[in-house]
């Protein structure tokens, strides 16, 4: 049988509503797999669809579960890749020198008053945009796992590391703070790269 645009929309809706495949990048691939299989079977779409989807229940759920787990790992790998990249190292070195100079000139109290929250403030707009996209049909696990992994690191800064920065000697405070500051800037670059990767799925 040949599947019409409407038939494809029905399968897509079942995957979204019944099986909870909320991410578009996961759904499109499972949808194509199911549609390819359905196309080679006999009968009409309306006769077949319920039984067909039920017979593929395990495949749908298992694939969704495994891909979700895998993407979570990929997000963390992307963060690690960013940290070990040359642009990050350069940015980290420049930020360290700049902040060390600022502390030397203006003092640590001045620095803490204006800067210590920056690694949380800088990524916030992008995180909010991605959070908003979760409520639209454009949500993609690829970018969401990346954003989730980065934000986990920024939360560690907010709840733990920021206290170290406040208490530590200048040199250590600058080293730790600059790391998170550089990461918050690289977050935008990594997100842009991930967006380019998923752009073709629109």
């Amino acid at each position: 049988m040949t599947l019409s645009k409407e038939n494809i929309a029905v399968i897509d809706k079942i995957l979204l509503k019944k099986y909870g495949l909320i991410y578009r990048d996961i759904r499109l691939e499972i949808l194509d797999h199911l549609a390819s299989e359905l196309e080679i079977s006999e009968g009409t779409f309306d006769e077949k669809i319920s039984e067909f989807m039920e017979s593929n229940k395990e495949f749908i759920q298992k694939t969704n579960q495994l891909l979700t787990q895998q993407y979570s790992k990929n997000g963390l790998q992307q963060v690690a890749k960013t940290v070990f990249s040359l642009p990050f190292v350069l940015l980290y070195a420049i930020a360290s020198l700049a902040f060390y100079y600022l502390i030397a000139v203006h003092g640590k109290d001045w620095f803490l008053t204006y800067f210590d929250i920056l690694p949380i403030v800088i990524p916030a707009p992008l995180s909010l945009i991605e959070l908003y996209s979760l409520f639209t049909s454009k949500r993609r696990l690829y970018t969401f796992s990346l954003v989730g992994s980065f934000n986990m690191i920024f939360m560690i800064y907010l709840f733990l590391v920021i206290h170290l920065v406040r208490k530590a000697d200048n040199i250590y405070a600058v080293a730790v703070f600059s790391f998170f500051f550089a990461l918050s800037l690289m977050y935008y670059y990594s997100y842009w790269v991930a967006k380019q990767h998923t752009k073709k799925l629109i």
Partner: protein
Amino acid sequence: MYKGSLTTIVMKLLEENGRMYGYEITQKVKEITQGELKITEGALYPALHKLEADGVLEVEVENVDNRLRKYYKLTEKGTAETVNRLAELEDFIRNMQALVQPKITN
């Protein structure tokens, strides 16, 4: 199926066929092995995505029959990796054969 063999099978098929989509891969394996070897469908896509994340595969998305289809093909790195993996697999098969069916010498 032995651990790690799925990725080697996928890479070999892509080396021979240029680019393929998920369902096509499962059908090709069924066809070649005459149904003896069936890829666990839940495992195929995570394997493809892992290979893509590792830079072994790249993806092309096309609109086919009213839906989007992801085609996978080997990258340059993937092509080199396939040669290595197949050589390793051949060694493995030869060794296993020697162990399972040793030649009887007088």
